[in-house]
């Protein structure tokens, strides 16, 4: 069974997660320093999320289509994203098997991994809130 009932639910969870990341300096600062723009494309259900750190000081979170050209794009099922944030996914294996598709400089995408790993501690409480509101 899918964790997310629909796109709205997925958007809500991701927005909540990234808002908390942006307010957590030890996670947000390395991302801001990277000045990267990353777009996540989710399917089943569909959603699109862009994290724009290009100016190095503001953490912009954009839902849906936009005109910003990302340096890195990551494509995956929403359930793969859920497993990723729960720390349950083997990223190299997911990349090799095509579960996660990475477009753009892969070395820059990989450099982000250690930076966002601390957010694995934030995510479970967000998902728990979602499950509570569903029940």
């Amino acid at each position: 069974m899918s964790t997310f009932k629909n796109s709205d639910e997925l958007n809500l969870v991701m927005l909540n997660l990234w808002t908390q990341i942006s307010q957590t300096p030890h996670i947000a600062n390395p991302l801001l320093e990277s000045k990267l723009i990353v777009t996540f494309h989710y399917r089943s259900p569909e959603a699109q999320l862009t994290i724009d750190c290009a100016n190095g000081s503001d953490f912009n979170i954009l839902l849906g289509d936009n005109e910003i050209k990302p340096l890195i794009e990551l494509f995956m099922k929403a359930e793969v994203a859920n497993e990723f944030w729960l720390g349950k996914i083997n990223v190299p294996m997911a990349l090799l098997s095509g579960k996660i598709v990475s477009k753009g400089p892969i070395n820059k995408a990989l450099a982000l991994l250690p930076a966002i790993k601390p957010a694995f501690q934030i995510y479970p409480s967000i998902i728990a809130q979602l499950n509570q509101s569903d029940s």
Partner: protein
Amino acid sequence: MNPFVFTTDTQIVFTYDFGELILDKLSDLSTSSILILTDLGIAKQDFFKVFLHNINQIEAKITLFDTITSDAEVTIVESITRIAIDNACDLILAIGGGSVIDTAKLVNIGLTLKDTEILNYQGINSITQKLKPLWVVPTTAGTGSEVSLVAVAKDNASNKKIFFGSHCLASEYAILDPNLLVTLPKFLTAATGMDAITHAIEAYTSINSNSPITDSLCIGALNNLFTYLPIAYNEPTNLSAREQTLIASTMAGLAFSNSGVGVVHALAHAIGAKYNTHHGATNAVFLLPGIKFNSRNSQSYYDDLSYKVFNNRNANQEFLCVKISELLATLELPLNLKSLGLPQLTNEDIEELAQTALVDPSLMFNPVEASLEDLKELIINSYN
């Protein structure tokens, strides 16, 4: 056993006459425009001149680009892509080593998608469209590029290696002809052979190495290479040795395409991008330090591999390292970065190289997590 996926999209053909085989296959197709890619070293060989004469007799238009240099440089890839698009090529034929084959894979992306800006397609599995047919004839035994699902380009603008991975990059045919290897210079025989050995060892010990298929390919490849690489090096015209090393290289290529490589490749990519060193020779410098580093908590992988490759109950990681040391001595390869031709490294150089290696995609498959400090230490200790 863990679940696994093993992918290969290439038909591997072993022959003693690549030219006849290609002409025979072309006679069944309605190919109208063929792009042939090679380098100057191959272009001046008699076998290539004969092949070029024969292929020019068929009806298809032939476009030859024979000046590919070491590494698939981005601007060269883009220039060749323009030529291929302008000539409406519908088949690419690559005859050469890893640089020629990787260049051909990247040109094929641009040719098929009609876009010369190759950097738009870097990434893993971002290319999903079936590309035009690519036939490759390796003239070295080492890179495994003839069967791999990846291509590495060199971007001179940034001094970085750029990575492309997709099963769509795979060649349609890998045509293995050992006769093409008998004129391979000794240094290239040694360096490319060590590249194949590194592929097999790193694929076996990779965190993705959970497949009995890749394991068997690694063991078989190493068994062949430890036996026949010294013979191919000392007796270049020994066709049996050339056959075995060529097949072993392809086996190792299949293995690493499915399992990944590791810290040795990550460091070799970083050094090669900055100092233009030969990839296989650079792998050779880092192979023993890499094994020793990973043995901190993955020694059992190497013990197991050594036991299986040398079919010796007493063979372990230490035995494997001794065998590699003996092989490096036989192959007369540089044993450190200084003898590989690197200048004295400053602290800034070491920092930059380690930073590059730290985000190299190869490193994500390494059995031991390597920190920036670990990589700096490996570079410093491998200097002399």
